[in-house]
């Protein structure tokens, strides 16, 4: 497996606290990867380390096999859209495209103009007067038109209204379909990820709780419900992710590669959101002080 992002023992300490601590992960290439986790899990820190915006305090991180922002060539291979999708307020849309053309040897001007046209942005308009959605689209256009091998998006849709969010992700998916492009996209909105991601990484408190292709994960996780019993009585190979009990009933979310044969259980498939929540809740048991809730896209 070729990793687009590989981290080992990665840590970033700010003056008072660790934003990311002892993080080890490998994100494979050729996927649209959803990086999901509660606020404070370290998603933004991880992605900023991956773009070279931050320097690690400990450990190592490689992106496409190189140190992030190691040089112009490495920078050219990675596109980044930051959380606030900042653009130069005083510069026009056209100025931003010139910026992209000047600063990126692999700049795809046709792609950029085509996207700006599709978005019906006025090239003469100052970026400062664009709506949040348009600004995000402009930032995404810049990141895409440099023709990166890896596109890193940090909560790109968090501040957008549902329609703008859908349009943004739509545009992203169209480009991904056309280009051979790996994408790593962080969000705390699982519904967004469900629409676009084929690989998911759940990050809680700097640790990867689960990672894998969405289809595999959905196929190997089941919700079991039946008469109350201790989870220890499950056969080998069935790992309990979460459990809940009432006086008479037990409900489990289990991971197993084989079929669930016990007729006492009613077996139901799980949604990606259930699955992600289950792993985050399980992690929450390790650190019960902070229980995080996931927002749900409307």
């Amino acid at each position, binding site marked *: 497996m070729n990793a687009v992002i590989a981290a080992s023992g990665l840590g970033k300490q700010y003056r008072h606290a660790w934003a990311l601590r002892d993080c080890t992960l490998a994100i494979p290439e050729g996927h649209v990867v959803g990086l999901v986790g509660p606020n404070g899990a370290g998603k933004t820190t991880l992605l900023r380390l991956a773009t070279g*915006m*931050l320097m690690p305090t400990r450990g190592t991180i490689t992106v496409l096999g190189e140190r992030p922002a190691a040089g112009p*060539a490495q920078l050219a291979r990675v596109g980044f859209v930051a959380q606030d999708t900042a653009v130069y307020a005083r510069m026009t849309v056209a100025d931003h495209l010139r*910026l992209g053309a000047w*600063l990126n*040897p692999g700049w795809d001007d046709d792609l950029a103009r085509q996207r700006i046209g599709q978005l019906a942005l006025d090239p003469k308009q100052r970026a400062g007067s664009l709506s949040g959605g348009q600004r995000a689209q402009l930032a995404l256009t810049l990141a895409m038109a440099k023709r990166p091998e890896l596109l890193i998006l940090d909560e790109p849709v968090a501040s957008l209204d549902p329609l703008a969010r859908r349009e943004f992700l739509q545009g992203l998916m169209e480009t991904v379909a056309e280009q051979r492009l790996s994408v790593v996209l962080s969000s705390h909105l699982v519904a967004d990820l469900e629409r676009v991601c084929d690989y998911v990484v759940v990050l809680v408190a700097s640790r990867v709780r689960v990672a894998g292709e969405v289809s595999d994960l959905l196929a190997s996780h089941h919700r079991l419900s039946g008469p109350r019993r201790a989870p220890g009585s499950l056969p080998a190979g069935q790992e309990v992710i979460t459990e809940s009990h009432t006086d008479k009933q037990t409900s489990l979310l289990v991971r197993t590669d084989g079929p669930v044969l016990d007729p006492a259980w009613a077996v139901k498939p799980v949604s990606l959101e259930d699955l992600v929540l289950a792993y985050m809740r399980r992690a929450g048991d390790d650190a019960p002080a902070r229980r995080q809730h996931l927002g749900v896209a409307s």
Partner: protein
Amino acid sequence: MIRFGMLQFRIQAITAAVTLAAFAVLLAATGPHLASTYAADGLDICHGSSCLSPATYFTASLARSPYDVVFLLSTGIILLAPAVIGLFWGAPLIARELETGTAALAWNQSVTRTRWLAVKLAIGGLTAMAVTEALSLMQTWWAVPISQAVADGSGAGVAQSRFSQLNFATHGITPLGYAAFAFALGVTAGALIRRTVPAMAVTLAIFAALQVAMPLWVRPNLAPPDHTVIPVTALGGAGPSQTGPGGDTFSLYALTIPGQPGAWILSSGPVNTAGQATSTTPVACASVGTGPGGGPQGNGFLPGQGPAAFVGCLASHGIREAITYQPASRYWRFQLTETAIYLALALALAGYCFRRLRRLS
């Protein structure tokens, strides 16, 4: 990256061009008339010591003319230009990118941060130096009649020697050093503080403090000063003053040094026959040159020959004037040294910015 740097520098470039144009218009509108006044006073045809009288008349007439105002205004603009550049070009260079989040955009194009900063520093720094030096050269051209009158031996009001604090800091090559340093200081403050407005405040405070400290404490010591002891009767225009009750003490400062025109006098004061500093009036001189109701009661010398008579009496009692000074011939050496100091500081700050930039996000 250079084209992008230029694109982002558009507003600053326009501001600089407008300022230069306005400055040029102001000086071009008044300069020829100043030169013609200079000629009308007979200064363009005089030779040697015959120039002193018209030069004195010329410099005295400046004080009542708008040229006085134009000189001080243009000098003020040249002095302020580096500070303004440091504040408005330097401080936001990195801080604004961090504040608005556009650093994530700028530093994720296919250009390393080092190159990004190198280009931005080069464009901003070189423009800052060019603009400030252009202002200085224009004003130097405008003030040629005034400088010439000073060289002819007159010094009054705005007409001061090249070593005077206003002239030294606005003429020659020092504006280059100030501009480069102020710009680099602003950039560094922005990189450290990461917020534009506080960085501007810090830039202003540090630059102003340095511009005060430099002429007061550093510049006089850029080369070991020369010392001389001359007769008090050779002090020319310098007038004595009696201080203390009954005129028993006096002071006498040198304004010029015979044979050392344009020298920068750091300190001067009377010394006795033993070469020790003194301010005690010899008893015999206490009432020399003073009039009834004057002198001993501290009301001053008789008009006319009063001061000269007093000075003559001092001289006859062995009192001489000790002067510490920098000769006028050291002007360019001082200009070069001071400019080199500021440029070295600017380079050191820029070097620090490159190191710091790698750890910014």
